[in-house]
């Protein structure tokens, strides 16, 4: 879906059109749910946050300001909402971890397509390598390749610069490539 076809829908939603609201909800529920789950690793927190988030959007729709890209706007705001609610949760459970050091954005083999263009490495291996990246690197990989955001939109969602996203991607792939190579070499050596 491109941005230009979304604008009227967003406009209708701002004007209070319930059908437009429902359309937005149905279009983005799955993507936002996956994203929230990756951040929080908690189904209930994610569902709860997502419900409150849409209610909040509706209630405050006239004060949301200029929205150029609906998808990245929703990702930015929902990310903030989930992090806020995790913080609150932690006050009660004295859970001391920030997004940086957390286990957020873990991947599982089932989430990867069988065919990977980057290598012939088995997905069980590729997942181990992906999960060994830093949380920030995993989030960039998630937003860019799982959610299909552009580098620019990824930067906006994570509130970092374009250059930062690019550097993070570069670091992530430098690491992945060298580890994939190591794996492939050791696989060859084992065979002989």
């Amino acid at each position, binding site marked *: *879906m491109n941005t230009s*076809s*979304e604008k009227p*829908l967003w406009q209708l939603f701002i004007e*209070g059109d*319930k*059908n*437009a*609201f*429902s*359309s937005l*909800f*149905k*279009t983005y*529920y*799955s993507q936002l*749910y*996956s994203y929230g789950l990756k951040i929080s690793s908690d189904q209930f927190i994610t*569902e709860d946050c*997502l*419900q409150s988030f*849409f*209610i909040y959007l*509706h*209630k405050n729709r006239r004060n949301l300001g200029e929205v150029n890209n609906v998808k990245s706007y929703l990702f930015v705001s929902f990310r903030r909402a989930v992090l806020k609610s995790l913080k609150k949760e932690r006050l009660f459970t004295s859970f001391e971890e920030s997004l940086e050091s957390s286990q957020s954005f873990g991947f599982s083999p*089932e*989430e*990867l*397509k069988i*065919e*990977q*263009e*980057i290598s012939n490495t088995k997905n069980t291996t*590729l997942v181990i390598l*992906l999960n060994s990246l830093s949380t920030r690197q995993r989030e960039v*990989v998630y937003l*860019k*390749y*799982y959610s299909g955001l552009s580098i620019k939109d990824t930067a906006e969602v994570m509130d970092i610069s374009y250059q930062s996203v*690019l550097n993070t*991607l*570069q670091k992530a*792939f*430098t690491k*992945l*490539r060298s580890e994939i190579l190591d794996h492939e070499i050791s696989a060859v050596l084992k065979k002989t």
Partner: protein
Amino acid sequence: MVSLLMKTIFMSKKNLSLLEILIDDISFVNWAKNQNQNDVAFWNNWIEKHSDKIETVFNAKAIILGIQFDNAKISESKIERELSHVLAQLEPEKKIPKVKKPPQRQLNI
């Protein structure tokens, strides 16, 4: 096809890194995806002459190819259920009388 990279190098000294230039260059993207014989030949030749840039070239290729994910979709019935929860919570603050038209208007999106 004249590569954007060449143009950029000749035309200006913009503050773009080689990586930035490569990932936005259609011809280079074709090379990364092995899509156009002319581009493949051009870039293979370029790489041979710029072997010091090989790390950046392979990183750019990896960024372009990326990781292919199989996105989990939430069932429509689940989304409908969640939506009706949310809609029920929106109702009280609005004093619009119940309209009995079908709930979904077809929006072309």
